[in-house]
């Protein structure tokens, strides 16, 4: 999509809206892609002391460029400490020290359940996706879960093909009934809107539309019947500082990742 009209793209709006949701004292378990960009924009703007943790074992990292993988050297070089993977999952995630777990999704349902495992049947999949990685336990051990994804009817579906990670299940108190004591998905930020779960049903409800986005657009790119809150707000547009921070970060990242291929291409 072009940014000619608004001065920013929907993806930039998504990343920046997600960054704003993070607080200075948060401890984030960061996934690659939009979550990584959002967390680092937060760190470079309003949340300089935020703690970013990547599942490769890097704690309190402050990368100058976005990592391509969750284990790039940049993460270790700038971390407060780097621990083993078993320690990461035992002491830091399962130990209850993560305030925000950030997840993306291939398929998402209205209760924040996520599929990144298979499209189709598990044993005979139409498409074999990468699978859960850290997500099954990130989803249950982090105090809260934030989800980011670009909207599409293929991605936001009535029923997901596989429960890679558990959100609110069938809604209501389903988490509690499974003995899961953490809050689960409390925020969904897409390229079009900000969503929060209904306090009772736990169904994701649009609470804010990004600038220039209509209710119809949100519904047209979502596979379930969308609920909008009564007091619907408009997401403040990215500030000049937010946009510059994100774009500089992405430019540095692009340059750094391209550099490794130079001699090959030559």
């Amino acid at each position, binding site marked *: 999509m072009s940014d000619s009209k608004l001065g920013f793209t929907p993806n930039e709006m998504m990343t920046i809206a997600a960054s704003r949701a993070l607080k200075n004292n948060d401890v984030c378990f960061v996934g690659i892609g939009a979550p990584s960009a959002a967390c680092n924009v937060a760190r470079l703007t309003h949340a300089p002391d935020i703690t970013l943790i990547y599942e490769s074992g890097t704690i309190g990292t402050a990368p100058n460029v976005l*990592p*391509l993988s969750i284990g790039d050297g940049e993460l270790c070089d700038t971390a407060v400490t780097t621990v083993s993977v078993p320690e990461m999952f035992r002491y830091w995630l*399962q130990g209850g020290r993560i305030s925000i777990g950030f997840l993306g999704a291939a398929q998402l349902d209205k209760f924040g359940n996520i599929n990144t495992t298979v499209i189709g049947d598990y044993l005979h999949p139409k498409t074999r996706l990468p*699978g859960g990685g*850290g997500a099954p336990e990130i989803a249950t051990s982090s105090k809260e879960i934030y989800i980011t994804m670009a909207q599409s009817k293929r991605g936001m579906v009535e029923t997901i093909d596989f429960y890679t*990670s558990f959100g609110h299940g069938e809604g209501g108190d389903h988490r509690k009934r*499974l003995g899961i004591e953490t809050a689960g998905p409390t925020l969904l930020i897409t390229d079009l809107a900000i969503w929060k779960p209904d306090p009772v049903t736990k169904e994701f409800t649009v609470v804010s539309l990004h600038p220039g986005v209509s209710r119809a657009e949100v519904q047209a790119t979502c596979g379930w019947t969308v609920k909008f809150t009564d007091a619907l707000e408009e997401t403040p547009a990215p500030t000049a500082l937010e946009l510059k921070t994100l774009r500089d970060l992405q430019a540095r990242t692009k340059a750094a990742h391209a550099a*490794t*291929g130079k001699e090959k291409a030559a």
Partner: protein
Amino acid sequence: MVKFLPLSEAVAWNLNDGDTVAFEGFTHLIPTAAAHEAIRQGFRELTLIRMTPDLIYDQMIGMGMARKIVFSYLGNPGVGLLRRARDAIENGFPRLIEVEEHSHAGMANAYEAGAAGLPCAVFRGYRGAGLAAVNPNIKTVSCPFTGEVLAAVPAIRPDVTFIHAQKADRKGNVLVEGIIGIQKEAVLAAKRAVVTVEEVVDNFDELHPNLTVLPSWTISAISVVPGGSHPSYTHGYYIRDNAAYLEWDEIAADREKFRAWMQKNVMERTADDFAARVEHLRIAA
């Protein structure tokens, strides 16, 4: 006692058809040279264990070497899917492979239990997750004090583990540093362990006492292979070849392109070729 061997000998001595094998490395220090040597030697019917199978298992699966794969993230990290693994699982090409899938927490705990000599790992996991329903190796135990139901998975005990590390000393102690991942556990959990290293130094006398050092008597064989983790990286030696990961997505997308690439870049090469591949990625001293 550990032996210093050329990689071809270390692989031939420690790996067998039908083995359960782990080539571990969590994005960092992936033992690519050892995997390519195993491919050249043409082992069959392997059970491949790894948290993040990555390019090397995509290659081994694409070459038809695997009977089964045990994993927790079947992706090209930061890029997307592993297309040879997909082709095997979705289409049975070049052969059908059995899949045992866990979460990262499940695999990390299972390696830890293997290193700790336990039959299983116990942790808080898989709640509400679909894997618990499709993987019979995910069970539960109850805490005898609180009654809380916890997840249990069998310990991982590979026949042989391959890792890449920064350096060995002349006695055969091995230093792993940076993102250390699951490598220590993968070595200690295995019956045999082979380590490729960037270099051998006289001694480790100046090392900080709390670094991750594998004593020589926990290792079967060490092979010196500079650049041996390319296109992954070795902290302190060379950076990750991100371009190669992006490029792999295209190579693996096509069966013929894959075969041709493997022929040229693996079958007709040796471990000695790795050093040149990281020349342009070396960290300025």
